[in-house]
């Protein structure tokens, strides 16, 4: 292999999935070259969702456990698979539960995801208008 193809190889090699994972999971010696702004925005949005709804991770976990109790009374579910998360898009914050039903033998229903979305809070987009009052 000549230097040219070497160079060519270097430029175009796509890292194998394994390599990719290794690179992403190795926490030591990471450089700060990626733009950190996205990280800040995403982390901040998550923190603010918890702040604004006054729902901590612990509260969410308590709710999750209670939801498991209630739903289990009516239908058999996979207790560990129930996910409860906060999601937001623009001005709305939603509490999203993803509840997986336990698979019964001979059950024809294969895709038995029951998704329930519950809006718990609406953040009003236009707050009080803020035009400077003229004196």
């Amino acid at each position: 292999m000549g230097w040219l193809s070497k160079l060519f190889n270097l430029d175009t090699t796509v890292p194998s999935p394994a390599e990719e994972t290794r690179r992403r999971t190795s926490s030591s010696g990471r450089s700060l070259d990626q733009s950190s702004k996205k990280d800040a925005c995403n982390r901040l949005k998550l923190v603010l969702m918890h702040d604004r709804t006054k729902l901590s991770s612990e509260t969410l976990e308590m709710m999750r456990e209670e939801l498991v109790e209630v739903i289990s009374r009516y239908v058999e579910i996979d207790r560990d698979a129930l996910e409860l998360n906060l999601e937001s898009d623009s001005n709305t914050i939603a509490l999203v539960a993803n509840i997986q039903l336990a698979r019964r033998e001979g059950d024809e229903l294969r895709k038995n995801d029951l998704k329930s979305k519950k809006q718990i809070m609406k953040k009003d987009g236009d707050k009080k208008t803020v035009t400077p009052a003229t004196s």
Partner: protein
Amino acid sequence: MTNKEGRVIVITSGKGGVGKTTASANIATGLARMGYKVAMIDTDIGLRNLDILMGLENRIVYNLIDVIEGRCKLHQALVKDKRLPNLSLLPAAQTRDKSALQQDMMLKVCDELKQDMDFVIVDSPAGIEQGFQNAVVAASEAIVVVTPEMSSVRDADRIIGLLEAKEEMINYKLVINRVRPGMMKSNDMMDIDDVLDILSIKLLGIVPEDQDIIISTNKGEPIVSVDDSLAGQAYRNIARRVAGEDVPYLDLDAPASWMDKVKDFFGKKSRTA
């Protein structure tokens, strides 16, 4: 300017060290430079600093708590600015703690003060407790100061929530301080739109990071009075917007990134030297 009551505006942020007091000094001075009668109130009892930024620390005789506890009249406690006769400061007490100030007393002082003033600028302490409540009680407008950092934006969100809940609050806007256009351009810092989007609040102004602010603080002269300073220009614009003028936002991009480079260059040189 007429017999109309003045506007009481609180400068607040939640997080400490983001530039509340600097903003208070500069907005108040900016408005006074435009000819308005302006009074500043430092409500950071026990940790007063607005006097230092204004260069008035040696002229204080009485303070806010003296007024409240009846040891002097309001006009006796007001410290006149060195340069602008229409600007004055009601200093905080340095030897007391924040429990000395109560909301109803603060309301009384502000009510009296706004009879003679066009603007009363209230510098709030950091935090969301009693000190903050005292500072906002008399205000119908607020300026929230934030830096483009996660911790500052998070705390500002709490403050905005509290301001929203306050019925008398008719108007609150955001000042984004310590903006570094270079870092924003390279996506290493949240930009103006990110911050406004996350906080969903209207923008009052953008102030670039400027070493001259440190120098102006050392001298006790607010940077708004320094003609060739970019941060000074930003504060002059903010003051005009507060007064109701429509002023376009500064284009920080071109001059600042160039200036940053020069400053970085010299900064690095002097460090290695």
